[in-house]
């Protein structure tokens, strides 16, 4: 939390919690949180109770936990679950480094609230290999030098796999267009296109 943004002050926080009794039927906030606020309990207790419960399958493993509603899927993966393969480039949807699959579709985990993935299946770069056997796209990136510093690579690979699955890799131009959401500051673009083209032409199951 930075200094310009103080933690929600007590009074407004309580009134906000109290007001929400009106819609307790729909709110995920347990009544206990409203009690906490009404009884002037410590703010942090109230905040903790107000957390959102989340059950999400990540790389085949189900995780059930309570999270701060502000948590992005990216921060959930990296900070809460220590799956640091998914990278934070910009954190504002501009670079694609944080690309993961939610229910089979590529999305930006930095602009996805973790709470919205409740009940979903998430696949990250850590979930792509089959044991020690690299996914064909991982192998192709190595073969074609599809990276230099490697920071954008997990996002590139997750996006590349989706690009083929979607049927958007039929030509080099189409690959470039449908991979444009993944920025590479090292400029490995030609090699990335080579890798994707080879996997697409190889016809392996991605």
């Amino acid at each position, binding site marked *: 939390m930075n200094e310009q943004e103080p933690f*929600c002050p007590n009074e407004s926080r309580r009134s906000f919690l109290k007001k929400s009794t009106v819609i307790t039927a729909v709110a995920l906030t347990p009544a206990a949180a409203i009690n906490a606020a009404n009884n002037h309990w410590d703010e942090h207790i109230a905040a903790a109770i107000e957390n959102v419960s989340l059950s999400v399958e990540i790389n085949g493993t189900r995780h059930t936990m309570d999270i701060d509603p502000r948590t992005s899927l990216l921060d959930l993966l990296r900070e809460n679950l220590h799956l640091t393969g998914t990278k934070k480039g910009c954190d504002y949807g501009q670079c694609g480094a944080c690309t993961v699959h939610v229910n089979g579709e590529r999305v930006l985990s930095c602009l996805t*609230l973790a709470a919205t993935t409740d009940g979903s299946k998430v696949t990250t770069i850590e979930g792509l290999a089959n044991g020690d056997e690299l996914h064909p796209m991982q192998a192709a990136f190595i073969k074609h030098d599809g990276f230099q510093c490697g920071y954008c690579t997990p996002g590139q690979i997750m996006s590349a796999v989706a690009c083929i699955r979607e049927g958007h890799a039929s030509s080099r131009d189409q690959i470039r267009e449908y991979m444009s959401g993944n920025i590479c500051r090292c400029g490995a673009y030609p090699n990335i296109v080579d890798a994707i083209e080879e996997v697409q032409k190889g016809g392996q199951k991605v």
Partner: protein
Amino acid sequence: MNLFQYVRPAEQKTAIAAVAAEPTARFLGGGTNLLDLMKRHIMQPEKLVDVTRLPLKGITQQGNIIRIGALTRNTEIAEDKTILQNLPLLAMAINAGASAQIRNMATTGGNLLQRTRCPYFYDTAMPCNKREPGTGCGALEGFNRMHAIFGFSDKCIAVNPSDMNVALRALDATVVVNGPKGERKIPIADFHRLPGDTPEKDTNLDKNELITAVTIPISPFSKNAYYLKVRDRNSYAFALVSVAAALNMDGNTIKEARLAMGGVAHKPWRLTDAETFLKSKTATEENFQQAAQIAFQGAKAFKHNQYKLKLGPNTIVQALSVASGLKSV
């Protein structure tokens, strides 16, 4: 980000009541615009009402009308057979926007409501009447390369950044909304606003109203349609200018034309005078040049966006040439 409460109601009614109960509450679609602005402290809702699981998804055809549920993702529209067959202009415009990942996330309602904005709106150290009414417009005398040439005011010169909206404007879409006072239908022409003295308001939607669908009439414009977007790089960038052109042709004669532009105004900009001029004209480059000149009567540029006065008409001519079949892409 400020602290907020997250709720995910199962019904439309409860979602609307949840937003109505809290002055700062917002509906949450794909989150690609709202979360971005929340991370930058530009929007600070105390409650987010996640509507993405409401049964407002999918594309259906009822007679001559195509109905797109407000929670339908951009990718789904761009790949839908009914859309590709009847409204290819819409698919082209959507595919010209953002990236594959963002289009997988973006909802129809969210795209309609993405903020009309400019770099000064994002820069909290600078004045911006849209972000903080009364502080002034940083862009007027500032770096205004991306800004409006039509319909601006001295309070705000930002442009609406959506590609989808430009196609919807050309296709005479209607926005269907539901709110505490019931359902109403807003023609796309009246949906977005010009800045005037209240640039903080992008649209005529009430805060507590939920967009439930967009409807579009099927028209005889599908065969001769083209969306042309000019940007600083080939992909994944906002438009400098864009043109949605759709023609109803009889041989080489234009029976009727539809033209709208993006990147030039606070709302998707329809070029009605140029449309009138093109009616019953032959598809020739001279006619397209003239239509473009007519469209740009009244355009006014600022210090850094003079280029739009030339790029705009050229883009109109090019879009019409491709749409009419006079030129290939």
